[in-house]
Each structure stands twice: as structure tokens, then as C-alpha cells.
């Protein structure tokens, strides 16, 4: 039987959303696999998360060590290398921590590695077939990976349907004693919080979010006017911040803010997963884009193929006339 281990990222005593998504991913790999949640950390926060995971997973392994209080990838890697059995299949979220941890872990476990899976198409012999994207999401690929000696696979957060919170009562095994020497050559110092801007986009129910389609800094005014008409706030994708047209605090995405609005107006945003990774809470997504092939249309509820520079003023006028 395939043994799958899911590494649970958590912060402040709460597991990240991806913890609910691993079971679906594991099922797509092998419906009969046993799935064990692995939680590392320290103290009460760890116990809380391990307890929560026991409601979802039948098996939970916890590793408690002061050195694991902040998730330093090098330390976590050492702990996991020590406690995981040979040939294990390890699932890790493809987020900024997973990218730090997973490639090195696969080397230390001497197993195969596959990154950023968005779907699995089952195992054929030793070959696990999975789906991922390349070239910034412009094309998809099928990839096979030989899992005979185990594998480390990162999955894209949000790509797999989450399971319910659950009320199972899994067993929690404490493997703190097996973690071994956790000394590391990299030490965590501090987290420098992003500067808080003039507007808190995470608090708004309606976001008018702009991407490359805005074309020019001066056109941001057009989006602002639409937002004003809708009682919304203007947010944006990464290129707008890279161009320094808006502050970092306005950026939605994995490298920016996570927002949970009711309505998300994606204006001239192509819809990369890094961007959509910051849109949570299943909002009503309206996508307007000149390019009918833009990936945003796959995730949006309503799609409109138009130039936002022409469309936004007209929409604004229509709303003001209501």
C-alpha cells in the first residue's frame, strides 16, 4: 500500500488551507493510499494543530522541538529526513516555505521530485502521472515521476478540492525523540512585515483589481473612478507593483496580500496562479480581458472580452446612472 505523508504548514496555531487539500490530492494519486499528516513545531501551537489534524487525518505524526518553533526549512528537512520511512511519498505545499524545503528534502530522502502539481492522473506501474504548468501558466504538461523509491511532490495550494473540517479522531504519534540533531547553518532572525499602505485591501468586500491591461500609470485613475462608483477599493497584480505604480500593500497574490472579498473584479489581469493564490473565500469573480485565451477566464465566474480602458469608464457611467 502506498504510504503518503502530508506536511502541514501552520502559523499561530492554525494549519494553512492546504491541509484540507492534501487528502484530495492523495486520493488522486492512489485512492487506497494511507495518508499521514506530519506536523512540526513547538509547544501549544503544535499541539493545537496536531489536534486539528487528527480530526481530518487518521494518522498524525508530530515533532516537537524548540528549534522548530519557526519553520526554518533546513531544520524541518533534518527532522523529516530522520523520521520518514524509506520510499515515502511526501506531499508539500508549493508555497514559499515548500519551495524552500522540498527540493532539498528529495535529495536527502534520495527520492524523485515533482513540483507544483495541479492534478494527478494515477499511478501506472512505478510511474505517477501528474499535471503541471510551464511558462508562467501559458501551457500545461503531463509529467511522470518514478515513485518506486519514494517521492517528494509539491502541490499547488488551491488546486485540489478541500475536504470538510471533519470530526475523525486520528491517532497522534509523537516522534520528537527521533528527530535527531537539528543544528543548522541558517538561522532565522525576524520577519520584516510589509509596510501597511493607506488602504487595507483585505478589509474591502469589493475589489477592482488591475493588471498589465492598465498599460500606463496614469490609467490607474480610470480604475479608481470605477472603484469609487462601486464603493470598492483598487488592488492589483504583481507587475503593477513591480512598475511602482501602486504600493506593495495593494498587491493581491502569494507574494502580496491574501484577500477574501465578496466580489473580485479582475481587470486586465491574466490570472497567474500566484495572483489567484491570494484570492480566497470563493468570491464572485468578474474577469475583463482583451485576450480571450487569458487563463483568468478559467477561474472567473463571469468573463468579458473587452479592453478594460474602454470598458471601465462605460461600466462606471452605467453604475452611476443607476
Amino acid at each position, binding site marked *: 500500500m502506498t504510504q503518503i505523508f502530508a506536511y502541514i504548514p501552520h502559523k499561530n496555531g492554525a494549519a494553512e488551507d492546504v491541509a484540507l487539500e492534501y487528502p484530495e490530492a492523495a486520493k488522486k494519486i492512489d485512492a487506497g493510499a494511507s495518508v499521514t499528516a506530519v506536523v512540526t513545531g513547538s509547544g501549544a501551537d503544535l499541539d493545537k494543530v496536531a489536534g486539528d489534524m487528527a480530526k481530518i487525518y487518521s494518522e498524525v505524526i508530530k515533532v516537537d522541538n524548540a528549534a522548530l518553533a519557526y519553520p526554518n526549512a533546513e531544520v524541518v528537512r533534518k527532522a523529516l529526513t530522520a523520521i520518514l520511512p524509506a520510499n515515502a511519498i511526501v506531499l508539500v505545499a508549493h508555497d514559499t516555505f515548500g519551495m524552500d524545503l522540498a527540493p532539498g528534502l528529495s535529495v536527502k530522502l534520495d527520492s524523485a521530485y515533482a513540483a507544483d502539481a495541479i492534478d494527478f492522473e494515477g499511478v501506472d506501474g512505478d510511474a505517477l502521472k501528474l499535471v503541471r504548468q510551464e511558462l508562467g501558466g501559458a501551457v500545461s504538461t503531463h509529467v511522470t515521476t518514478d515513485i518506486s523509491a519514494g517521492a517528494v511532490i509539491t502541490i499547488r495550494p488551491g488546486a485540489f478540492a478541500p475536504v470538510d473540517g471533519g470530526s475523525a479522531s486520528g491517532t497522534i504519534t509523537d516522534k520528537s525523540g527521533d528527530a535527531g540533531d537539528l543544528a543548522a547553518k541558517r538561522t532565522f532572525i525576524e520577519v520584516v512585515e510589509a509596510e501597511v499602505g493607506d488602504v487595507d485591501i483585505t478589509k474591502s468586500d469589493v475589489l477592482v483589481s488591475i493588471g498589465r491591461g492598465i498599460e500606463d500609470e*496614469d490609467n490607474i485613475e480610470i480604475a479608481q473612478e470605477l472603484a469609487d462608483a462601486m464603493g470598492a477599493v483598487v488592488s492589483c497584480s504583481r507587475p503593477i507593483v513591480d*512598475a511602482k505604480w501602486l504600493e506593495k500593500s495593494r498587491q493581491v497574490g502569494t507574494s502580496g496580500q491574501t484577500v477574501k472579498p465578496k466580489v473580485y473584479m479582475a481587470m486586465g489581469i491574466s490570472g497567474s496562479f500566484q495572483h489567484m493564490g491570494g484570492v480566497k473565500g470563493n468570491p464572485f469573480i468578474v474577469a475583463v480581458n482583451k485576450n480571450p485565451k487569458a487563463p483568468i477566464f478559467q477561474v472567473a465566474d463571469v468573463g468579458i472580452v473587452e479592453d478594460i480602458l474602454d470598458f471601465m469608464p462605460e461600466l462606471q457611467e452605467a453604475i452611476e446612472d443607476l
Partner: protein
Amino acid sequence: MSSIIGPASYQLFGFFPTIILSFLLPVIGVGLFTYIMARRIAPLVRANPDYRFDNIPQRIINLFLVWLAQIRQPRYMLAGVLHIVIFAGFLVLSIRSTTLVIVGLSDGFVLPGFDGALGAVYNFFKDYAATGVLIACLVAAVRRGVIKPARYAVPEKYGKDHTAEAIFVLGVISTLMISEALFEASELAYVLRETGHDHFVAPLSITWMFKAMLGTTSLDTLQGIHVAAYYIHDVAFFFFLCFLPMGKHFHVITSIFNVFFMRVKKGNIKPVMHGVSEEDLDELESFGTKKLEDFTWKHMLDFYSCADCGRCSDQCPANAVGRPLSPRFITIKARDLIFKNYPMTGEIYNSPNLLVEDIYTEDEIWSCTTCGACEEECPLGIEYIDKMVDLRRGMVDEGMVPQSLQKPLKALEKRGNPYGKMEKKRADWAKDKEFKAEHSVKVLGKKETAETLYFVDSITSYDDNIQDIAKRTAIILEKAGVDYGVLGKEEKDSGNEVLRFGEEMLYQSLKEDNTEAILASGVKEIVTADPHAYNALKNDYQGLPPVKHISQVVTEKVKSGDLVLTSCKEPGKVFFYHDPCYLGRHNGLYEDPREALDAIDNLTRVEIEKSRDRSFCCGGGGLMLFYEPEEETRMGVLRVNMAAEAGATVIVTACPFCLVNMQDAIKVAGKEGEMEAMDFTQLIEQHLA
């Protein structure tokens, strides 16, 4: 009966012969002046080469028109007239001043030929000249010191106010005029008192007035005034001579040379290094202007020649919208640096820093749209575009290119267009269903040939909105019976902005590709609707068939009867033709588009002062569309407001970039619905009979 004693014979305090002063002052003055000029010429000697001995007849014409006749001065009426008076006065008085120096050595000296009627006539004019200069100085001083026109202001970031120097020099000039007049008037008054002989003096001139005022003055006092006035004049004269090279009044000396050597060809860009052929460019160690000495000697002479009149910056659209660029200070900062690095005494200082670190900023140099308004205006023929391009060449060579420009430049290198679109899609505009149903466009190559090449260029080929210009140009050419085709994927960006943004080698490669493709197509003539392409093909490329803008073709074909235009479809609208920089100023094409518009009956067209060679840039084209300048407003918005003020409801332009900028500006200015922007080809196509 006595006669007044001249400075050559006068004994100060009865024992000191003033002739010693008359001898020493010129010797010291000329000696010092020679030394100063030698120091000032030093940077020119170390500067890069420049070739300015071509087109001598044109240069002589420029000398007569721009220098002697001062034709650019009245573009600013009051300041211009004042300057013409002072300049003409100086020319007239130069003879008198030279004579006076010798008078100090030999009483009563007159230049050969000036002892008769000629001398009398000269004296008559000379007196009025001095009077005119004095009055002009007074008016100018009031203007500079009291009224203070805005264009003379020095923003804090550019240094201290220049008013004091200006007033001081006006004072020195006035001193020269007054002392000269007093010198003469005191003698005439003396003669009148002693002999009763009343010499004729030009009525109401300052000499005439002083003579009248001195009518009752004692002979001793007159004698004193006479000698004192002489030496005040002498000292002021030589002081002025040596003071000129110290600042903005250097132009009094350099202007004649600067105008002679001024740009005679328009629309082109100087080679990277004069004397180095395009094939040998790879051998150059460094590109462009990085240090002071990388400027050419003519560019250095420009810095010396600037009179600080502020007309360039007053016309500069970048300055008008608050970009960090004011052409006047490009010059003044460089002049200040020359003065600092080449001091009057001591070692020449070689700054280790780049100019863009030292006196300029990168944004300042990228802010220029190369519209040419500054050069068109400068009464002294100072040029800016070549300097900007040379500074940019230096920055590109150092890798100092804003990120926003790096992407389009890389796309141009890889794909031949700044958008990174595929080469094979360059002529896709002609595949549009509706268009294709009625028109077909030949793609020239192995199978197809044509008389005329329509050079489309990148924005018109690829921009969804601007592709209409290509379609309409095609329809107009078809209707006019022109046998034409396009190059399709063989066409690359014309590189007009690539060259002007300092990416010389990329421009060279675009030019080579286009030249090869155009010559291989065997066409006899090139037509384009993009003034930037027009300019590059006409002025930057070599060895191509003649190039025409579509407006020239239209006007020609209307005159020949091959094209017939209907009467105006929207007679209620008021049309305003906006001159694109690369059609107007850089190529002198002002009339063809207007004639074409006027060939549409009942079309109401308005003109404003800022038209033709004073047209105001829309915001810039080509790579400028990718650059994100720091500015308070957009050039296009100012332009739209100018048109609106003139009562225009339709801005007609003849350049795809102008169209993009005007359409945007109308939105930003909140004039949607009231005004519209339209390309020349659209208007013509609508009115094809």
C-alpha cells in the same frame, strides 16, 4: 582761446600724462583677454571632433539671417526687439569703440575715410545707436529687475538666480553708452563755449542731450568730464571684453561662430563619432557622451554661447509638464562644469564621475521627446537633440537603461518590434475579414513586386487600435491608383526612436535589415503614414528610393485629379490640424496635410499660434510610449486644451503616436464626447469620393 585737451595729451594733476593709461589699459585688457580666451579654448581642443565645414553657402546664409538679421529674435517680440536694438547698436558702435582706443594715444584720431561726409553720417547714426542701446538697456533692466518674466526664473534645483548678472551687464553697457556720449558732448560743449561754433549733433540723441545739459558748465569741469568719461569708457570697455567670457555674455563673442557652425541639416542624428564609419564602430572603446570632454567642440561652443534667454525651456514640452528637464539648464549646468573644471588659473580638473551622476540625472536625459522645439527657437543655433542622443548612448553603453525601456529594446532585438509580437504577424492587419473582403495588399517578395512600398512600421502593424491607419492608408493608395505593396515579415521597426534613445548598434541592425529588404523589393518609391518612419528612412538611412508621407501623396493626387474628395461630412465640426514633430519641425512638411484638409469643401479648420514650427509635442512616440517619466500632467492634455481653447472639436493628426496620445489625453482631460482625435488617413478615407 583754448581747446579741450584730449586724453593723449592730458596731464593728470599737472604732471601725470594720461597717455600712459591710454597705452596700459589696452595692453592689459587685450593681454588679459587673450589669456582668458586661451583658457576658454582649452576644453574645445580636448573635445570630441565635429564636422562643421560642409554646406558653406547655407552656413553663410544662416550667418546673414540668424546672426546679422536676427530673424529668430522677434519670435519673442519685446525681448527680441530690445535685443535687435542692442545688437545693431553694438555693431555700429564697434567702429567708434575701436577708434576711441586709438584716440587715447593720438588726439583727434579718425579712421581713414571717416574724416569727410562718411564720418558725419556715421556719427549721426552712432549717436542714435548709443541712444537706442541705452534706452533698450533701461527697458531691459526694468523687465529683468521689476517685471521679471517667468521664463528667466531659476528653479532652486538648478542653482541661483541670474538676475544680478543680467542687470550688472546692462549697467556696464549703459556706462559705455553714457561715457562715450559724455566724452563727445563735453568736447562739443567746450568748443561751443570757446568758439561759438555749434557742431551738428543728432537731435534727441544722448550726446545731444548731454551737450545741452553741459551748456553752462565751466570749461574746467568740461575738461574734467571729457578725460574722466574717456577713461571710464576705456576701463569699462576692456573690463567688458574680459568679463564676457566669464558667463552668459560670452555669446557676444561666440555667437557669430556658433551660428556659422549651427546644424544645417534637419531630422538626422550625428554619428557616434565624427570620422568613424559605421563599420568601424566596434573599434570604439566607449560610446556617447559620458564625461565633459566627450561632447564635441561645437557642443562646447553651444554651452559658451547660451545667453540664458530661456526660450528653449519656454517651448520645451517636457519642461511644461514638469518633467525633470529644462534644456536651458542642460546647457548652463554644462557651462558651469566647464568653468569649474577649466579654471582661469591652475590645473584642469578631470572629474571621475559620469555627467549623469555629476550634473545631470538619468531621468532628465530620458525625459526628452526629441521634438526639436528648443532648437527651432534658439536665436543662437544651440542644439540639444544630438547632445541628448550622445548622453543616452553613453548611458546605454554603461547599462543605465530604465527597466521599462529594457523590455521593448530586447523585443526589438529579438523580434524587430517593441511589443515582442511575432514577425510573421506583421501584416496580419491586412487579413482582417471585413478589410480582406474588399481589398488586397501585396506582400512584396519573390513573387510580388510593386512600384511603391508602403512602409507600415511597428505601431501601425501591431497595435489593435492603430491598425486602422494601415487599412486606411492602403485604401487611399488603392483609390489613388498607386501600385503598392508591403514588406510583411521582412519589415522591421524603422528604429527612429531606437537611434534617438541611444541604442546605436540595435538601430544599425534594424537599418541594415530594412535597407536590404527594401532594396531587394525593387520599389521605386516609399510611402509611409508614420512620420517617425518617414524621418528615419529619409534622414537616417542611406541609399533608399525617395520617401513620401501619405499626406504628400494625397495632396499630389488631389491636384492631379487622381483622388477626388467629397465635401465635409460633418460641416458642424471644427477641425484642428496638429503638426507631428517628425513631419513638421524635423522635415518641414507643414503645408501638404493642410492643403489636403482644405481640399475638403466646407471643412472648418482653425489655426493657433502654437502650430507649424511651434507645434507642441503630443508626448512622444516609439520607445517614449514605454518610458514612465515623472511629470505633473501629460503633454497631450496641454495640447488638447490648446485645441479646445481655439474652439476645435476634432484634432486631426498625421502620426500614429500623436493619435494614441491625443486619444488618451482627451479621456484624461475629461473632454470625451466634446472632442475627438482622428488620424489624417481616417479623415481622408471618409471623404473619398
